[in-house]
C-alpha cells in the first residue's frame, strides 16, 4: 500500500514540477518579445541569460561536489573546453578570416551553416544544438582522460589537482602553436550567439535571445535531476556519505566517480558553450580559477546538495552582482548618496561579506539539502500533523 502511494506521490510531484517549468519558460518567452535592449528592465533578461549559464554550471558542480562528495575545482577548465568547441564549430566561413586574423584557420566548418545549407532555417537551430552537445562531449572526453589519474586522490588533493588541470588546459588553449585552431590567446567571436537567435514566423520576428539559453539550462538541469533521483544518483550519494560502506555494498567507486565526473563535466561544457553564446565571445583568459570559485560560492549559497538551491543561488548571485547591488559601485544605493564609500568595488566587498556570513553562520545555505518540492511536501505534512 505504502509503496503504491509513494510512487503515485512521486509522479504527482513530477507532473507539478513540469507544469511549473512550462509556465516559467512561457514567461521567459513573453519577456523576450517585450523587453527591448534599450529598456531599463533589460537587465532582467541579462540576469536570466547569465543566470541560466551559471545555474547549469553550479548544478553540474553540485552533482560532483554536493552529491558525489568529490571536491573538484576544475570547472572553469571544462567550461573553457565547451566554450571553445562551440565557438570554433559555429563561426560562419565568411567571418572566419576576420576572427583568425593572425592565423590560417585550420577548422573551416560550421555546424549551423552546413545544416542550414541542407535544411534551411531549421538547420541553423539543429547546428547550434549539435555544437552545444559536441561542446559537452568534448569536455566529458577530457574529463575522462583527466579522471583516470586524479579521481583516486582524496578530497583536497583532488581539489588542487583538478584546479591544476584547469590551469593546464587554459595554457594549452592559449598556446601560439595551436593558433590555427584556437586562435591562440586571442578571442573568438562572430559565432552563433544568443543576440542573433531569432525566429521568423510569417511577418513577425520572434526573439529567442533569452529563451534559448534558459531552455538549454532547463532541459540540462532536468536531466541532472533525473540522474540524481535515479539509482545512480543514490549510489553517488552513498559514496559521498561513506565511501568505504559504499564500496562494501558493491558500488564500484572508480566507475561511479568517473560517471559523476564525466557527466558533471559534460554539463560544465554545455554551460561553457552557453557562456560563449550569451557573452558572444570566447576567450581562454576568462576561464580562470576565480570563475570556479564563484561557481562554488553559488553552490554554497544555495546549499551543497540541493539542486534547486544551486539554481536559486546562482540567480541570486548573478542578479545581486550584476543588477541589484550595482548602486554600491556607482555612488547611490538605497537612496543613500555617498560616492566616497559607494565607489568601484564596494559591491564585491559587500557581496563577499554576505558570502562569508553564509559560509560561517548559515553553513547549509539557502536550501540546505532540501529541494523546493520538499518544502511543499513538508508543508503538507505539517498541515496533516496539525489536523491530527
Amino acid at each position: 500500500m505504502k509503496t503504491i502511494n509513494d510512487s503515485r506521490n512521486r509522479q504527482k510531484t513530477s507532473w507539478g514540477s513540469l507544469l511549473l517549468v512550462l509556465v516559467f519558460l512561457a514567461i521567459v518567452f513573453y519577456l523576450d518579445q517585450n523587453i527591448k535592449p534599450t529598456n531599463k528592465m533589460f537587465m532582467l533578461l541579462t540576469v536570466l541569460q547569465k543566470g541560466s549559464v551559471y545555474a547549469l554550471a553550479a548544478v553540474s558542480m553540485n552533482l560532483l561536489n554536493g552529491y558525489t562528495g568529490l571536491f573538484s575545482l576544475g570547472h572553469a577548465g571544462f567550461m573553457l573546453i565547451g566554450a571553445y568547441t562551440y565557438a570554433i564549430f559555429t563561426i560562419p566561413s565568411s567571418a572566419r578570416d576576420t576572427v583568425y586574423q593572425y592565423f590560417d584557420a585550420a577548422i573551416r566548418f560550421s555546424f549551423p551553416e552546413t545544416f542550414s545549407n541542407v535544411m534551411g532555417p531549421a538547420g541553423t537551430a539543429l547546428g547550434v544544438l549539435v555544437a552545444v552537445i559536441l561542446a559537452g562531449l568534448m569536455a566529458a572526453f577530457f574529463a575522462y582522460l583527466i579522471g583516470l589519474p586524479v579521481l583516486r586522490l582524496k578530497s583536497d588533493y583532488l581539489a588542487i589537482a583538478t584546479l591544476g588541470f584547469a590551469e593546464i588546459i587554459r595554457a594549452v588553449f592559449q598556446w601560439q602553436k595551436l593558433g590555427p585552431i584556437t586562435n591562440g590567446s586571442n578571442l573568438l567571436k562572430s559565432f552563433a550567439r544568443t543576440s542573433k537567435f531569432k525566429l521568423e514566423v510569417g511577418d513577425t520576428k520572434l526573439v529567442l535571445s533569452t529563451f534559448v539559453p534558459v531552455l538549454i539550462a532547463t532541459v540540462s538541469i532536468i536531466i541532472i535531476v533525473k540522474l540524481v533521483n535515479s539509482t545512480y544518483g543514490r549510489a553517488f550519494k552513498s559514496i559521498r556519505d561513506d565511501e568505504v560502506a559504499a564500496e562494501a555494498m558493491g558500488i564500484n567507486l572508480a566507475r561511479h566517480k568517473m560517471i559523476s565526473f564525466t557527466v558533471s563535466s559534460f554539463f560544465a561544457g554545455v554551460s561553457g558553450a552557453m557562456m560563449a553564446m550569451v557573452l558572444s565571445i570566447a576567450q581562454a583568459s576568462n576561464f580562470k580559477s576565480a570563475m570556479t570559485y564563484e561557481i562554488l560560492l553559488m553552490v554554497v549559497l544555495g546549499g551543497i546538495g540541493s539542486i534547486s538551491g544551486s539554481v536559486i543561488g546562482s540567480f541570486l548571485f548573478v542578479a545581486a552582482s550584476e543588477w541589484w547591488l550595482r548602486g554600491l559601485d556607482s555612488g547611490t544605493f538605497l537612496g543613500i548618496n555617498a560616492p566616497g564609500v559607494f565607489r568601484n568595488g564596494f559591491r564585491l566587498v559587500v557581496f563577499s561579506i554576505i558570502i562569508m556570513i553564509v559560509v560561517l553562520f548559515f553553513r547549509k545555505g539557502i536550501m540546505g539539502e532540501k529541494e523546493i518540492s520538499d518544502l511543499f511536501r513538508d508543508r503538507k505534512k505539517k498541515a496533516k500533523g496539525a489536523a491530527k
Partner: protein
Amino acid sequence: MRKDKPCVLKVEDVTMQFGGVVAVNNFSMEEYEGEIVAIIGPNGAGKTTAFNVITGVYAPTNGRVSFNGERVIENYPRGKMKKAYLGQNAGKYTEHLEPTPDKLTALGMARTFQNIRLWKSMTVFENVLIAKHLKRTSNVFSATFGANRVEEQMQRDEADALIETVGLADVRDELATSLPYGKQRRLEIARALATEPKLLLLDEPAAGMNPQETVELTRFIGEIRDQFHVSILLIEHHMDLVMDISERIYVLDFGSMIASGTPAEIQQNEKVIDAYLGVTDDA
C-alpha cells in the same frame, strides 16, 4: 561440520604483514554453506585484519582466498616485501589477484562494520535501496531517462519487503542515524542482505549492545541464516553470543590460529583458556 555441503569460503595460508609486524600469520579456515562460523580472540589478535583481508580491504601479503570454489584473492610477497617477508609458505602462491571490495560483494560477500557505517543523510529505506544498486541491469542513460522503470519499482518493492522482514517498517522513512543503536545494527545487516549475498560477514555485531539487545541479535542472526539461506562469518567478543549460535569457531592469538572446533571443544581447549586468562565471559 557440514562437510556434505559445498565450501563457500576457503582461506589458505593467509599472512598479513605490515612493515615488520605480522598481524595475521598463516591463517587458514573453511566455511560451508549454511554454517555460522565465528573468529574469536583477544584484543589485537588479528581478527579484524583477517576479516579485512577476506573482504578485500587489504591485500594479504601471502596466501589465497577462494569463494564458492573460485579463487578470488591471492598474493605473494612482492616488491619490498620480497626481502622483508617473515611468514611461511613463501613461494607457494604465485598469482596476484586483488579485487576491490565491491567486486567481492558482487560475487556474493556482504559485510557489516564494527563501528556502524550507515549512510548518514539517508533514510532507512534509501539505505537498503542503494544496496540494491549492485543488482541493476540499467546503465546510466537508461536510469536517467527512466527506461528502467520496471526494475526501479522492483528494487523498491524488494527493499520494502526486506525492511518489513527485518522489522524496520515502522521507521522506514526515518533518517538512518536517528535510530537507536540496536536498530542501526539491524539496518546494517538488512543493507548487507539487500546485496543478496551467499556469505554474510559480521564484524562484532554485538559491540556496544546491552544483554537484552544481544539476546535479540542472537535470535535475529539465526533467523537470517534460515530465512535468507546465507552462511555467516562473524567476529565477536560476546562469548554468549558466539557460543550460542556458532557451529564452529576459530581462535586467533597474536595473529596465529591456536584452536578451531565446535563451541564445546573450544570451551575445553587449554590454549584458548590461557589466551583469554580465564576471562571467557563477557570480555
